[in-house]
């Protein structure tokens, strides 16, 4: 991190900014740069400062100076390219910027989108399931009529339906192989 270069010119700028802040207070428009006094400047770049009134008799109350600086904190920070964290005024709490609050919280928008998608998908699946059901219900009832005609009994063993012997086209019994294959060739 680069050290902030502090010299007499920066001090002058600081005095000017404080005087500017005091001038914005009603009844203090005549504050001059010479009325701002700095003392106890250290290497840390920290110092005490006071503002005297025009007659140079007494210093202005701290509360007044604090509120004036608070009003113009942003300007003072920007003059030095610093911010609330790097330029600290003891006993002057910074007014924190409020977070931007959109009118509708973002999460509800995303929630709404995903909720609608899932709902629509569920409805589609349910409806297609009902349609399949209806088709199946029509199907077996037709098959049952033809079953009575054919007397095709399907035996069920161990919960697994046995395939009925193929009755189509004649009475070929698959259990018997053809004569040629049974006899070993000479």
């Amino acid at each position: 991190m680069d050290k902030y270069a502090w010299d007499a010119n920066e001090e002058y700028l600081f005095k000017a900014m404080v005087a500017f802040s005091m001038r914005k207070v009603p009844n203090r428009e005549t504050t001059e740069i010479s009325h701002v006094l700095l003392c106890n400047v250290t290497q840390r770049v920290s110092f005490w400062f006071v503002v005297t009134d025009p007659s140079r008799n007494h210093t202005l109350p701290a509360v007044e100076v604090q509120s004036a600086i608070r009003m113009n904190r942003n300007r003072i920070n920007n003059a030095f390219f610093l911010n609330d964290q790097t330029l600290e005024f003891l006993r002057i709490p910074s007014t924190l910027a409020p977070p931007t609050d959109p009118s509708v919280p973002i999460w509800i928008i995303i929630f709404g989108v995903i909720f609608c998608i899932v709902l629509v998908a569920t409805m589609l699946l349910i409806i297609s399931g009902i349609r399949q059901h209806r088709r199946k219900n029509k199907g077996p009832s037709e098959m049952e009529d033809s079953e009575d005609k054919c007397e095709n009994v399907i035996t069920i063993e161990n919960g697994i339906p046995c395939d009925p012997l193929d009755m189509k086209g004649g009475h070929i019994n698959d259990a018997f192989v053809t004569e040629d294959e049974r006899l070993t060739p000479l």
Partner: protein
Amino acid sequence: MEKTRPLWATPLQFVFACISYAVGLGNVWRFPYLCQMYGGGSFLVPYIIMLVVEGMPLLYLELAVGQRMRQGSIGAWRTVSPYLSGVGVASVVVSFFLCMYYNVVNAWAFWYLFHSFQDPLPWSVCPLNGNRTGYIEECEKASSTQYFWYRKTLNISPSIQESGAVQWEPALCLILAWLVVYLCILRGTESTGKVVYFTALLPYCVLIIYLVRGLTLHGATNGLAYMFTPKMEQLANPKAWINAATQIFFSLGLGFGSLIAFASYNEPSNNCQKHAIIVSIINSSTSIFASIVTFSIYGFKATFNYESCLNKVILLLTNSFDLEDGFLTANNLEQVKDYLASAYPSKYSEVFPQIKNCSLETELETAVQGTGLAFIVYTEAIKNMEVSQLWSVLYFFMLLLLGIGSMLGNTAAILTPLTDSKVISSYLPKEAISGLVCLANCAIGMLFTMEAGSYWFDIFNDYAATLSLLLIVLAETVAVCYLYGLSRFESDLKAMTGRALNWYWKAMWGGVSPLLIISLFIFYLSDYIITGTLRYQAWDAAQGQLVTKDYPPHALAVIGLLVAASTMCIPLGALGTLITRRLKRGDTAPVA
């Protein structure tokens, strides 16, 4: 004409379903904690031993039973022996409890996911107080991530007695979570089979991305070194072995009936031995893989906090002693402190109480598990990464996939017995049965969205399944080996799959695994009895931290009810069958 049982389209779907069910949130938030507590790298020794001795045999047993009986848990155990119908019912009851509270985690994951689309992330900054001069006090005392979790997400009450009202935001997320689960299970294996491709594979993609990101973070190596340095003395600690056994047991999801349900949709000739080994190995590897990711993130977070702590001390000293900016660095901090102590003793002793002793070890040692790890520690690490929104979205998406994958198994455990039962399935189509189950669970789940809901969640998480499952799996093993007969089961399996049963499985099923389960059971019981009263952690808003409190009597009653409701089913089922048989014998006139 009888309906054929629905089948998985390919054996791969079955494997993915099992993986998706077994690999859940526990792999991510419980295993890294255990690894840290019980000796880092050396914890892998008891873990792998327990996997081979306990995990694989019991998993194979459940899959084999399901594939052989081709019914859900109630029907399967009734076929094994009519006196065991209680075991199946107990499984369903435990699964029901699990479904109730597990989906709440998915709701929270949805909540965090939706909030990840903001800049800055809402849990990275504290909200301002009334007159905008500072941050809200609770947030100052705790951290912004803890504040977001306890206040914004849960709006937690100070104790379990103060239930508060149902919070509409988590309630909405819970409804969405159940809707998503319903969508996935709606069509039975047809829809579940396709969903598990995503829920099994995508979390690995995210984990790999996180692994690459985690390993490249500053300070990740600190966490990894801390985790993997083996502390061999922990091998002598019996708690390490017990926790390894417990973790394997619960991580595979044995005893809920989900594995039986999944296996019942298999072709009879399926090679479930191979699948059991694959699933258990993948489950354990995922735990280890996830803990590598977790520990690199821990290391990053610990290093970040350590360096912030150092910076705060440097700032404090620089301000108090008006030193030049940049004079104090992390390297010369100790020497400068000594110099200042000797040069300005009075001023130094004034400042001294405020100087925190920053230590990397203490930061690393904060071991967290469960929801605290997932929603507080991870979010704290994420907020410090670049492009934190992306990482946040990825992370919570992965949590959702893991959670929903496990929910598919949990609901299958309830629905398969219901759809198998001819009474119910003749009245209602399976879509309606699934819908009713989801609706009932969602309605009861609203309990967990109240202000005290997180405390009830902890009760269910700690007590609903632990003891009951041990008993159920013990009953299952004993039933198959001794009631049904190990040789009979062996010949069944040989007829079904065409492969002989290895002696290893017989030894494990007959002897080792039941003994292990009995010792785990005894350990749990003695642990409950020794600790006496049960305690929980409550969030104190004034202090900004967790405090320990005793459970009130009605909470203890609920705990007792939870355990009793499932375990009592086993003896009651046997008793019921005994009575009905006696009555039947009494009805028929005895033949002279």
